[in-house]
């Protein structure tokens, strides 16, 4: 499997009147063809900013400080706005949490999809229309032909999100950035959406970067998981490595906060506090103040990435050979008994 998207030493800041907000800090990951990589972390950790910045959709006060993103080997960080326009939708597209940010409320769904197809492909109106219908069927809209001329408000939240997905897939992109696409949906609708993404990946071979604040949601679909905290990827590995053998206390915290697993034991383990605003982040590990396993060095020096397996990395001083041995909390290995 070849790498399709590679992000290297990527740092991005916002210049604000209060100072520099370091929203993305030295992020490294790669996404393989046909792979689903989940990015998980609490609100404010930089997930959306990272995705939008790959597509250059951020406001002007955003500035890439270092690193680059390569799509199919090409450094898109250096692309002009004109070249980005050719790329967006065609090679790489994005769906957002709120479908209404993408959909125009006054234009029929079918027309919106047809138009986005014609933006990228020089094909006749009728051909585009036929393709739009196929897309609506691909994303599981029943009676697509009957609904083709309806405006978005005739659709439920779940159906709108499917339409947004249809638009994102209109020109057969190689990479889909899905930013919390199911967070606003009911659980049964969310489950259908996750299965839809899986089936689309299977049929089209698209690679998906799936962003969520909820490890439970990504368990069903992710091949690999990157855990993000305060602008950094603090742990990355295969789904099994992250869910059954995680090494970073932040990952432990996210796993312990899962209500669905808490019901067996009757306890929930919450992480105290919240993620910091990255205006002049303190030296050392920004997670230290919330981390009950923090070592003295965490307050002085940020930990490097330690390698655990060929696919598993974590940035915590607990992995340093000099660190005291700590057994991960029992719930980080918890399997659901049937």
């Amino acid at each position: 499997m070849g790498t399709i998207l590679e992000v290297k030493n990527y740092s991005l800041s916002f210049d604000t009147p209060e100072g520099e907000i370091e929203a993305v800090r030295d992020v490294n990951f790669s996404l393989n063809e046909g792979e689903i990589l989940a990015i998980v972390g609490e609100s404010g950790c930089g997930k959306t900013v990272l995705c939008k910045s790959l597509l250059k959709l951020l406001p002007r006060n955003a500035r890439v400080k270092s690193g680059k993103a390569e799509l199919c080997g090409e450094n898109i960080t250096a692309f002009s706005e004109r070249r980005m326009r050719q790329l967006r939708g065609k090679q790489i597209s994005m769906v957002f949490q709120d479908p209404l940010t993408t959909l125009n409320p006054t234009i029929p769904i079918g027309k919106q999809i047809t138009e986005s197809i014609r933006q990228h492909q020089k094909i006749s109106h009728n051909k585009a229309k036929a393709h739009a219908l196929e897309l609506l069927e691909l994303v599981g809209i029943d009676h697509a032909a009957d609904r083709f001329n309806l405006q978005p408000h005739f659709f439920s939240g779940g159906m709108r999100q499917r339409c947004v997905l249809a638009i994102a897939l209109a020109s057969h992109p190689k990479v889909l950035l899905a930013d919390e696409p199911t967070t606003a949906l009911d659980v049964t609708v969310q489950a259908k959406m996750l299965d839809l993404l899986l089936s689309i990946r299977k049929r089209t071979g698209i690679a998906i970067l799936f962003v969520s604040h909820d490890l439970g949601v990504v368990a069903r679909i992710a091949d690999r998981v990157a855990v993000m905290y305060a602008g950094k990827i603090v742990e990355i590995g295969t789904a099994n490595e992250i869910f059954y053998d995680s090494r970073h206390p932040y990952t432990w915290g996210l796993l312990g906060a899962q209500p669905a697993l808490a019901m067996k034991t009757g306890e929930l383990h919450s992480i105290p506090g919240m993620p910091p605003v990255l205006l002049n982040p303190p030296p050392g590990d920004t997670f230290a103040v919330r981390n009950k396993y923090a070592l003295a060095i965490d307050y002085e020096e940020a930990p490097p990435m330690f390698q655990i397996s060929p696919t598993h990395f974590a940035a915590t001083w607990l992995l340093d050979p000099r660190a005291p041995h700590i057994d991960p909390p029992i719930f980080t290995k918890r399997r659901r008994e049937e």
Partner: protein
Amino acid sequence: MNQTAILEVKNLKQYFPVSKHLTVKAVDDISFQIRKGEIFGLVGESGSGKSTVARSIMGLYQLTDGEVWFQGNKISDPKVFRSNRRDIQKNMQIIFQDSAAALNPRMTVRNIIAEPMQACRMFVKNKEAMDAKIDKLLDQVGLAKSFRSRYPGELSGGQRQRVAIARSIGTNPDIIIADEPIASLDVSIQAQILTLFQNLQQEYGFAFLFIAHDLSVVRFLSNTVGVMLHGKILEMAETEELFQNPLHPYTKALLSAVPVADPIYERSKKILYYDPSKLSLTGSLQQLSPKHWMFCSPK
């Protein structure tokens, strides 16, 4: 009325005429009761009628039909409601999902928390005692004293929800109604707030109507769970009984959709789907065992 029930909802119907030809049956003949110190989880997906139940209990609508009893008074009768207004204000508190909209943006955290207590004439002319009480409440919900002078707009979603909780427990109410109080929060903050609710409930002993759209969060907290769809309670049971032995196909579908942070389990899990349009709307909630009720349609 059952002596130990603090709140009893009997055959509640709340219909909204939206046009000449269409009436939305937001709540359609539901009954349940909540005993002293009990936590009742009311679960349903969006549009199932949960918020309407909460609003009907609070006396915000003229009921289409049915009764609401609170501490032995039939508060669905507007006259009874009016004559008990002060008592209801003190003893029934509400927390909303969207505290950004529910908290007055121009009031400080101190005044937001003080308001219900002032309405109940607590600490009248004793600002010191009021301030001490507010500091205690802030501490109990995990906020520093310095939050007193802040405004809701300066707080995170989780912090605002903590303020709403402090506000609701100030009058030491007999029941708190919380309408999806954690739905818009991150999973990690949800866990904080759920744990906070659990601790406060143990300390104060209030009864709790906890409304959620997802079964996973109510198992941790509730003693009893009711599952709603289309304005009806389809299944109601003691919590572990419901999770161990769900009977209604809709409950089974909801349970199967709960995401579990266990990829091996998730990848092989078969999600059950239920077509809500299949639900027959004639029928009633039948008691099948001492702790288990299900909506049954006549054969």
